[in-house]
C-alpha cells in the first residue's frame, strides 16, 4: 500500500513535469515540406499522438506551512522538545538538518502512509540555546529519550544532512528499536574538503535547490535563530571522518538507505561509497536532478523509495511491480 500511494503521487507529478511545448508553430521548413506536413497534420489531427502537457515543474502547494501536521511538545532529558505529527501507521521519526525544522513535501507524502513525527532538535527554532549537549552522542541520547517518552518502541528513523549524523548516533545507541535507518543528503561521513559556501541569498538558493520553483513559501527564520542554530551545529557536527561514530556504524546491522542528490554540492554523491563501505547493511540511492534539499526538489522520488525501503528493507531490491500491460 505504501508504495502504491507514493508511486501514484510520483507518477502524477512526473506527468506534470518535463513537457515543454513547441513555443511556436512551425512556419515553414522547406516549401515542399510545409505543404506536405500541413496535409499530413490535417490528416492526423483527429487522432494525434498522446500530447503531453506543457507545464513547468509542479510548484508544490505551499499549504499552511505544516501540511496538516499538528504541533506538540514532549519533555525528555531536561528538554522541552517540539515536534509535528501527522498520519497513522508505522512510525517514521524525522530529524532536520542544520537549517532547522521544516515540514517538507516528502513528509506530507509519507504521512499518507506512516505516522510521521518531525522533531525539532533542542537548540533549534525558538527553543532555548542548547549549551548542555556536549557531543552529538549526548544529543542523540536525548532524542532517543524523547522518542521513548512518546511510548514509541519500534520505528524508522530519517535524518537530513546534519540530522543524518544525529540519527546515525541515535541508531548506534539503540539499534534494536529501528526498523530502518534513512540518511538523506547525509553529512555523517564526509570527504575532508572545503565546504561550498554561498555568498548571497541567490547563491544559497541555487546551492540547496535544483528546483527552487518547488519550494513552499514560508517565513525566513530570524537571524538570531539562524545564528543560534549555526553555533550549535558548528560545535557538535564533528570532523568529516568521525572515527568514534564510524567504529560503531561498522558494527550496526540496521537496514540503512542513504540518499544523495545527483546535483548536490553540499554533500556530494561522491561520498556515497563511503557509507556503503562503512555501514554493513547500507544501500545507496541516487535521486536524480536533486540538490541538497532532496526532499523538496524531488519529494515524490524520495518518498517512494523511502516507503519501499521501510516496508521491505533489503527486499526492496526486487520489484514487486507487474509488467503486464493488458491482461
Amino acid at each position, binding site marked *: 500500500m505504501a508504495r502504491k500511494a507514493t508511486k501514484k503521487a510520483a507518477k502524477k507529478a512526473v506527468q506534470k513535469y518535463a513537457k515543454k511545448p513547441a513555443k511556436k508553430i512551425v512556419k515553414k521548413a*522547406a516549401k515542399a515540406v510545409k505543404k506536405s506536413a500541413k496535409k499530413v497534420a490535417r490528416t492526423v489531427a483527429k487522432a494525434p499522438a498522446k500530447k503531453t502537457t506543457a507545464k513547468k515543474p509542479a510548484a508544490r502547494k505551499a499549504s499552511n506551512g505544516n501540511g496538516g501536521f499538528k504541533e506538540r511538545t514532549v519533555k525528555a532529558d531536561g528538554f522541552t522538545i517540539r515536534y509535528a505529527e501527522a498520519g497513522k501507521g508505522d512510525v517514521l521519526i524525522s530529524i532536520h538538518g542544520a537549517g532547522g525544522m521544516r515540514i517538507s513535501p516528502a513528509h506530507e507524502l509519507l504521512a499518507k502512509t506512516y505516522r510521521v513525527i518531525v522533531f525539532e532538535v533542542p537548540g533549534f527554532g525558538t527553543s532555548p540555546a542548547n549549551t548542555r549537549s556536549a557531543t552529538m552522542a549526548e544529543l542523540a541520547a536525548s532524542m532517543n529519550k524523547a522518542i521513548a517518552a512518546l511510548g514509541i518502541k519500534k520505528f524508522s528513523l530519517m535524518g537530513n544532512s546534519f540530522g543524518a549524523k544525529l540519527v546515525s548516533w541515535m541508531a548506534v545507541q539503540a539499534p534494536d528499536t529501528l526498523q530502518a535507518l534513512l540518511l538523506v543528503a547525509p553529512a555523517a561521513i564526509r570527504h575532508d574538503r572545503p565546504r561550498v559556501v554561498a555568498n548571497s541569498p541567490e547563491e544559497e538558493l541555487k546551492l540547496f535547490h535544483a528546483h527552487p520553483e518547488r519550494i513552499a513559501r514560508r517565513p525566513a527564520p530570524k537571524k538570531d535563530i539562524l545564528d543560534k542554530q549555526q553555533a550549535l551545529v558548528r560545535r557538535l557536527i564533528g570532523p568529516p571522518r568521525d572515527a568514534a561514530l564510524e567504529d560503531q556504524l561498522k558494527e550496526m546491522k540496521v537496514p540503512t538507505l542513504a540518499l544523495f542528490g545527483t546535483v548536490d554540492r553540499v554533500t556530494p554523491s561522491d561520498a556515497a*561509497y563511503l557509507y556503503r563501505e562503512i555501514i554493513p547493511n547500507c544501500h545507496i*540511492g*541516487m535521486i*536524480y536532478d536533486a540538490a541538497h534539499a532532496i526532499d523538496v526538489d524531488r519529494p515524490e522520488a524520495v518518498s*517512494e523509495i523511502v516507503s519501499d525501503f521501510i516496508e521491505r528493507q533489503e527486499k526492496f531490491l526486487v520489484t514487486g511491480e507487474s509488467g503486464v500491460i493488458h491482461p
Partner: protein
Amino acid sequence: MKSALFCTSRYLGPAKPGVWPVPADTYSTDIAERSYQTTLEQFRLADEVNFDWVTVAEHHFAPFSLTPNPMVFAGALTQVVKKAKIALLGASIPILNPIRVAEEMAMLDTLTGGRIVAGMLRGTGNEYVTYNLNPAESRARFEEALQLIRYAWTQTQPFAWQGRFFQYRSICIWPRPVQQPHPPIYMSASSPESGEFAARNKLGIGFAFTPSPQAATAADHYRKQAKLNDWEPKPEDIIFRIAVHVADTDEQALADLEEAARQPAHLGVSTANRAVESVVAGTGYYGRDVEGQRGRLFARGDLKQRVANGQILLGSVETVWKQIQDLKNMMGCGVLDFTLATQLGSRTLHAIELIGEKIAPRMREI
C-alpha cells in the same frame, strides 16, 4: 584535426523508397550479409590507411542502416579495427535501457583497450515509434539517461537510481570502462538546447545532416555557452559529419557520385514518414528552433547545390583538401566524420585510401 570514417552499413539492395518503417518484403539475407561484409571491409581498410576513428550509428526499421544496435556491430569491429578509435555515434540513449548502454560501452572499451568514443544521441523523431516512447519526453529522457550512464561508469559501489524516467534498485556494472573516469562523451548539438546542455556538462558535440553554415552557428553557440560555464572546448570536442567522395580527378568524383545517385539511396529515415514526422514536430521534440531543425533534415537539392551548401565533400584530393580547410575555418571542428557518399565497390575503397593516405596526414597538421 582527426579523420573518421562513417559507414551506415547500408542495405545494398532494393527497397521501397519514401516510407518508414520500410517494408521488408524485398529483403534478401544474402544481400544483407554482403552489405555487412562490405562495411567490415571498408572499416578494415580505413584502419589500415590510418584513419583516426571509425564510426557507427543507430537507426531502426530501414535499409538506410543495418545497425539498429551499433554496439553489436562495434563488437565485430573490435576484431577488425586494431588501431583506430571506434566511435558509437551513437547510441540513442532515451529509447534504450541506459544501464545496458553503460555495460555495452564498457565491454567495448575493454575489448579495444580504451578506444571507444561514446556518442549519446536522442535519435531521430521516428525512432520514438520504434520502441513506443513519447517524443515529447525525448530531451528529458536523454538528459537523465546520460547522467545515469555516467554514474554507472563511475560508481564503484552498488546504487539505486530514482529518476523521472528510469528507476533501478541496484546498479554496479562489470566490466568497467578502461578510459577513466569514462570514455569521452559526445552528443548532437544542432539545436540550441543541446549545445547548452553539452556546455554545462563539458561534453563534446557533433553535427550530422547539418549544412555547414548552420553547424558553424551552432558550434559558436556551444563555445559561448562553454565560456559561460568557465571552460573552453578543444577542436577535438567538435565533430562534423559530412558526406564525401574523393577520386583521382574532380570530374571522376562527380561522375561517380552521379552514378551512385542512381542507386537505391535509402535516405530520409527521419523524414520518410511525413505523418510521423509531423506529429513528432508537434510534440515539442525539436525544441525552440523548430524551423531550423526541421529545415536541416529536409534540406536537399541537386548534387552541385549540396556541395556548395557544405553538405558533401566532393572532388580530387586537392579539391577536397581545400573544402576541409574551409570547414575547419568556418566551424573550428577537430574531427571530420567522413560519410561514404557512394557504394561503388573498388572506387569507394579507392576513396577511402585517398582520404587516409593523402588527406588525413594533412589534417593532422591543422
